[in-house]
């Protein structure tokens, strides 16, 4: 057992890099990522677990970083949206699918969606539309881009399973009809 003094050390890995920092126990993981590590891709919306914008992956599983203390992540492996793309000139397939399907306008909610969707498609490679919608229900998008986000997840699922014919731009399942 350890009673934490005003500051305690948290050691963790974020996007493959090791960090060790002194933190007050009440510092949220979301604020730790943004203000201490400068990883501002993790967005902070409601700060009580409803909006999903702050979702990151903790040991590969999506969690709300606003509902966890930084100190609780001691020893953990965290992935944020900054850790998705394989390189500066290449997007992760889910990011690419969001871009192709115009699944974002302002982009505030997008990092949270991406962290949920990448984990979701790892576990469910070919989800039904109902499964996609149920999974997305944990995220709020106030530009109301949900239809395009569903399409993006569908396209990402095809891209990740190597169905290049249907994943090619303009060829996805039900592309928006012409005006």
């Amino acid at each position, binding site marked *: *057992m350890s009673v934490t003094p005003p500051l305690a050390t948290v050691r963790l890995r974020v996007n493959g890099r090791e960090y060790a920092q002194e933190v007050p126990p009440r510092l949220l993981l979301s604020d730790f990522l943004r203000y201490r590590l400068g990883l501002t891709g993790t967005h902070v919306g409601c700060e009580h677990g409803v909006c999903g914008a702050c979702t990151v992956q903790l040991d590969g599983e999506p969690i709300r970083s606003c509902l*966890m203390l930084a100190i609780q992540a001691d020893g953990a492996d965290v992935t944020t949206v900054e850790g998705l793309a394989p390189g500066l000139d290449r997007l992760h397939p889910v990011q690419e699918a969001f871009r192709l399907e115009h699944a974002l306008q302002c982009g505030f909610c997008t990092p949270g969606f991406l962290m949920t969707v990448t*984990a979701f498609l790892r576990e469910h490679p070919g989800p039904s539309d109902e499964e996609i919608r149920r999974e997305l229900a944990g995220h709020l998008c106030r530009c109301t881009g949900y239809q395009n986000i569903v399409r993006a997840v569908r396209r990402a699922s095809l891209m990740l399973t190597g169905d290049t014919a249907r994943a090619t731009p303009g060829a996805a399942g039900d592309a928006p009809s012409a005006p």
Partner: protein
Amino acid sequence: MKPPAFEYVAVASTEEAVAQLAAHGDDARLLAGGQSLMPILNMRLATPGRLVDLNRVGALSYIVERRGGVAIGAMTRQRTAERSELVATAVPLLAEALPWVGHTAIRNRGTIGGSLAHADPAAELPAVAVCLDARFTVRGEAGERTLAAREFFRGYLTTALAPTELLAEVWFPSALPGTGSAWIEFARRHGDYALVGVAAVVTLEGSTVRRASLAVTGVDGVPVRAIDAERLLIGAPLSAESMAAAAESVRRPLEPQDDIHATAAYRRHLAGILIVRALTRAGDRARLT
């Protein structure tokens, strides 16, 4: 920083947690998955002097078969239980209700014991526990005691836990042969708290109902166990008439609250509809076993 300042203690065992509660009483709060407590702290609705973090207590995280049922350690993540083969086969009602608890990201942190000890009146797990007559093992300085689910839930966000006690384990009985169960809820959005949720278990012998169990969430301060409705069902075939009579007997005395999500009248109506649907589905599944 959003949460108020607090002293933080990461305990390594149940004994250490109990000692912390004994020493600090009301001023200490147990931190389980944090999916209810952290929002409460972020909004500063509570200002505990000391947080006792249970997340490093590995001994409180397990799912094992025991005495004709399944024992689940209080710190077992909801997502772990949702993925458990044992839960799926032995306690299918729990397996069916779990995906309705919040969202994936919530269940990855949220724990079985945390949800039960928080006792939200619209939550899924308390209703499942009450429907199945789950047993709650509680530890305090004086030792251990076991409570029936119906004794555990006392009122709105209120349980039989003393400030110096913690919920250590929940035991769910395995489904009997010839039994079908169903969880049905209606929420504005998947993962939101239910407007109304219904847990139903039906055991058939031929076409006759031998046992029936019904619990409704979202309509009172605690899950409503519908004993009168169960009596109406037992000993008769499961028919449209018997299910309607059972639903009516539950619906009529309900006094749910109006809130921004739904009126009391709508909730009462919904309870009647969902009870019939849940009984129908549980009956169909009982016939298939």
